[in-house]
């Protein structure tokens, strides 16, 4: 075992960071700085450990027993390819968050007390540590402990951001839903541990080998339910768009960019590793469920995102969408895996697409959240209708945000396109080989993916345009200044990744070898996807396969841009004249600018059946109906699953509980009656013995 890059190092860094909260006794700022520095060290250590495993000899698993804490379970760490890949993803975003964090917190909440700073330093390190160790867990108990620790730490971060009732409510919803998910996970894990008689994954695998088909599928769906809650799959997503925006922005980046991926890790771990049958394909219901859930999440996620005017909430809904895209890949891999007639290397392509999208989404969503955080800390406004014109005041932030927007909209030449391209190719291949209705479902899913991509572009044209371009609509936006350098550095790190993974994704495939080969027990990602050289992406190692080269396209774009630049300058280098925007002869003000609500209105009407938009317009007329003195418009789009399912359930439970409570007696006779009745019934039920 490599002594330098061991999980101990990560744990030590994060533990030191958590303990640095104690420094708040003397200075909250110091605690914050030291805590984030330790987190940075932990993240770098995480990258080291992950790369060590991913680039080491194939099939290697780094195992390490943990101290004997519980008499009934031996805790261990086991870092295999899949774990290492997710550790890498986590650590990448953690680096950005750790650099970005202190400056952001200082700028956003300059007068936070030392208690809050201590809590933030502590919880951030705990959060990162738990996320890393969920992925490294080698047994069910440490998995569950870290899993809940992750939830708890992020809950603390959510509620610590603001002394606002909204945060507490968001945190509550978050905790309750994930706790429900954990309950399902508990059952799934415990069913296995009871059969295995031990908690470690090797034992669980052995126990799962002897399961009958029904139990296996039931357990998978229990686990899927648990993980899907955490991943924010529709309709289990309602907590996500509330909790993610409520956290401090670098934590939002972590939650959206990384924490959801831990749930993906869980699905992969359960589906392909722990519960997978020893031989033969996975039960068909698994893959199809995941695929359909992913498709629905992708489309609905982006549709709801489109109608959000809160910048961070919009981004949170996009996380729902992207998790859906990842799940499409995962589901397809599940469908195609070990099916010789159809699958072959396609399962590898699908899984590669999913994993690549995992890291891509982490990069661009992290970048976008950090960008939104920069806006937030300089304007203290999250509603984009109150922003505008920030590109001239915060050019770096705007540029980086635009980069992220292009990436998330799956536009070439950035990384979002690459993983979606792979997903499309896997879908297309799957549809071509699975004939009949199955193929049609896959094709439909591909069409929905295309729709998703288009809508995402629309959404980010809106988000970027309304927030950064045009005129400043409020004084908040007017007085914004560029974000501090530390924050920009954090963002640039992720932006570099977006570009790098977009332009030369072939080099990253090497990192995907270990997880894909390990899970699918077949060829690794690079053997399939970069069979024709590192600069070329292909769908199969055979010569006739479709192949593209992101690098070539990028080079072509740059060359064409140079040509276009010459054209743009024109034949005569006349100076640029500045003039007011044309507004039919009136003096332009910020109120002429198109708002986000207006921008999204056509789509709101097109998808009215889904949105069920509510609007209230109140007019004040001055004497005649044709002259309006004031008009007030309030509109909202409701989340259908929230109103139709959650509100009903919640109201039902609350009303029931309240009724029961009000109807209950306070008279002692009732008390005695209950005791007597209990005894009477118990005697009748249990007392009468068999003669």
């Amino acid at each position, binding site marked *: 075992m490599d002594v330098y890059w061991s999980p101990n190092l990560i744990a030590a860094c994060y533990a030191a960071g958590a303990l640095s909260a104690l420094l708040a006794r003397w200075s909250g700022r110091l605690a914050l700085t030291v805590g984030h520095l330790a987190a940075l060290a932990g993240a770098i250590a995480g990258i080291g450990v992950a790369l060590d495993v991913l680039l080491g000899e194939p099939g290697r698993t780094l195992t390490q027993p943990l101290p004997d804490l519980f008499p009934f379970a031996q805790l261990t760490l086991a870092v295999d390819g899949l774990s290492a890949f997710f550790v890498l993803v986590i650590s990448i975003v953690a680096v950005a968050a750790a650099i970005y964090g202190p400056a952001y917190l200082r700028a956003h909440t300059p007068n936070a007390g030392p208690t809050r700073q201590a809590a933030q330093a502590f919880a951030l390190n705990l959060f990162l540590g738990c996320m890393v160790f969920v992925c490294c867990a080698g047994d069910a108990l440490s998995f569950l402990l870290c899993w809940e620790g992750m939830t708890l730490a992020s809950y603390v971060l959510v509620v610590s951001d603001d002394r606002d009732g909204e945060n*507490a409510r968001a*945190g509550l919803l978050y*905790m309750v839903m994930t706790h429900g998910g954990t309950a399902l996970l508990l059952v799934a894990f415990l069913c296995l541990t009871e059969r295995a008689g031990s908690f470690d994954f090797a034992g669980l695998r052995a126990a799962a080998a002897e399961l009958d088909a029904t139990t296996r599928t039931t357990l998978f769906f229990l686990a899927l339910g648990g993980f899907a809650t955490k991943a924010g799959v529709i309709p289990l997503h309602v907590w996500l768009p509330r909790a993610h925006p409520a956290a401090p922005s670098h934590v939002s980046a972590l939650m959206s960019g990384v924490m959801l991926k831990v749930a993906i890790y869980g699905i992969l771990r359960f589906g392909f590793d722990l519960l997978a049958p020893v031989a033969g394909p996975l039960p068909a219901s698994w893959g199809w469920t995941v695929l359909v859930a992913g498709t629905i999440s992708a489309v609905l996620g982006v549709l709801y995102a489109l109608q959000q005017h809160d910048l961070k909430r919009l981004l949170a809904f996009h996380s729902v969408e992207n998790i859906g895209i990842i799940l499409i890949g995962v589901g397809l891999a599940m469908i195609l895996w070990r099916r010789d007639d159809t699958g072959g290397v396609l399962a590898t392509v699908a899984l590669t697409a999913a994993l690549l999208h995992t890291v891509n989404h982490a990069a661009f969503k992290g970048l976008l959240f950090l960008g939104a955080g920069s806006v937030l800390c300089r304007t203290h406004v999250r509603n984009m209708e109150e922003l505008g014109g920030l590109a001239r005041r915060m050019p770096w932030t705007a540029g980086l945000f635009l980069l992220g927007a292009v990436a998330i909209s799956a536009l070439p030449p950035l990384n979002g396109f690459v993983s979606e391209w792979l997903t499309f190719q896997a879908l297309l291949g799957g549809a071509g080989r699975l004939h009949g209705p199955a193929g049609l479902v896959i094709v439909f899913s591909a069409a929905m993916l295309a729709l998703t991509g288009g809508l995402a572009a629309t959404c980010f044209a809106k988000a970027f345009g309304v927030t950064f371009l045009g005129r400043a609509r409020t004084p908040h936006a007017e007085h914004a200044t560029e974000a501090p350098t530390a924050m920009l550095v954090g963002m640039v790190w992720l932006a570099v990744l977006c570009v790098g993974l977009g332009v030369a994704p072939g080099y990253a495939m090497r990192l995907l070898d270990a997880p894909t080969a390990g899970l699918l027990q077949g060829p690794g990602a690079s053997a399939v996807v970069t069979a024709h050289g590192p600069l070329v992406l292909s769908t199969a190692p055979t010569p006739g396969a479709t192949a593209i080269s992101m690098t070539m396209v990028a080079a072509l774009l740059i060359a064409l841009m140079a040509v276009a630049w010459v054209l743009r300058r024109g034949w005569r280098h006349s100076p640029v004249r500045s003039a007011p925007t044309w507004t039919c002869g009136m003096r332009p003000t910020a109120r002429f600018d198109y708002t986000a609500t207006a921008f999204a209105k056509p789509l709101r009407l097109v998808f009215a059946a889904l949105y069920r938009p509510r609007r209230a317009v109140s007019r004040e007329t001055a004497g005649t109906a044709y002259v309006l003195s004031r008009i007030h418009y309030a509109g909202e789009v409701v989340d259908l699953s929230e109103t139709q399912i959650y509100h009903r359930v919640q109201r039902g439970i609350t009303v029931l509980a309240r009724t029961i409570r009000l109807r209950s007696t306070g008279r002692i006779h009732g*008390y005695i009656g*209950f005791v007597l009745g209990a005894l009477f019934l118990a005697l009748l039920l249990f007392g009468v013995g068999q003669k």
Partner: protein
Amino acid sequence: MADTLLWVLPLVPTVTALAMLMTRRRRILSLLDVGGSAVLAALTLVLAREIAADGPRSLGVLRLDELGLVFLLLLAVLNLAVSVYTVGWLRQAVAVGNMKARSLRSYFVLVHAFVATMVVTILADNLGILWIAMEGTTITSAVLIGYHGHRHGLEAAWKYIIVTTIGISFGLFGTVLIYAAAADVMGGAGAMSWTAIMQVAPQLDPGIVRIGFVFVIVGYGTKAGLAPMHLWLPDAHSQAPTPVSALLSGVLIKCALLAIIRFQTIAAAACGPAFAQQVLLVFGLISVVVATPFILAQRDIKRLLGYHSVEHVGIVALGLGFGGAIGTYGALLHVVNHGVTKALAFFAAGTAIARYGSRDMRAIRGLAAVAPIGATLLMLAALSLAGVPPFSIFVSELMVLRAGIGHSHWVAIAIFLVMVVVIFAGLLHHAGAMVFGEPRGAGRRPEDWSPLAGMVLLATIMLLFGLTIPANFDAVLRRAVEIVVG
């Protein structure tokens, strides 16, 4: 040494109580209080080491085995924490006028008498003595519950004394029946002794043991707060002075559970384990289900905690009902974990109540802003009670769940999990509303050291047991499980 200690142990609080009769000064009384509790805790630890090393000790009608030791440790630790907490709590209560300075003496005397009866309950080997001590706890604690002397306090005390007296008279009936069955086999002498009965338990007539056990579980179950016999519990817990609430919830209902466990072992030996488990399972499930709506729609913080105790007693019963070594282990661990956590929750709630002058949770807002440490502790207690790792209750609930899954009680598991999640929501909703938000109706006052010291002691144990189970405690628990399961 150890044998003598068995006698000395109940004498410690008795002597403390008697010594308190000599003074009326608050400081001296508090000193005596903490001192007496510390001595009790120290002696318990000494005893625990000897028992862990050499096995059960008995002397006359008193006997301490590992099963009792688990409960005794809980009692000693909580009693110490309560004493430490009481110092500051009392100062505040006297200042506000909730407690009258001249009646402090009787309060302290009663608390120690209460503790003494509980010690005897735990130590009793003779089932008759067990019953007598249990009735003794009822009488002493009833006076404590009505201690504030106002209308609600007296109402709660009356309900408490009547309902639990009925309950434990059923318990007495059950004891008599078991005794009759045992005496039939082994003759009158010694047939009240639990150890003696256990020797002949498999030969006991199953029919009469069956009826006896039903009487016992309804009877002592009333005292333990199992639904639907629990109705006195929220009343009593909400009206008692906070330290007493902590003792009631943390220790007293656990003493009743110990009695139930003792009888369960007899019943399991006589009628086969399935019967006793089935009964416990039903009562456990009813408790978990019944507590839920009252927790959700609750407004009074101490009643909330009271109902929450009902739920957790139900979980212990479920653990016993799922049975097997794992279930019993989980149940016993849960007894300890819930005792510690619930006491912490009562303490934290007590300081919040003192700060805001109201038990209504709608009046308590923004605690984090005015009392950050107290608010953190309250939140930690709420999270732990809700079953979040890395706090202790998660571990024991995990064990209980494991036992249920191991024995394929799917319906029970499903109901249990749904209720746990719903209660989690309710509890966290209430706790979140109190801790976060803008503070209202309370100024920022420095936090008193003594309540904090008591709470931090408990919180440390809570966290420790969530992260690990110490090896020597594990050994004690394992042997206790062997005693129960055989």
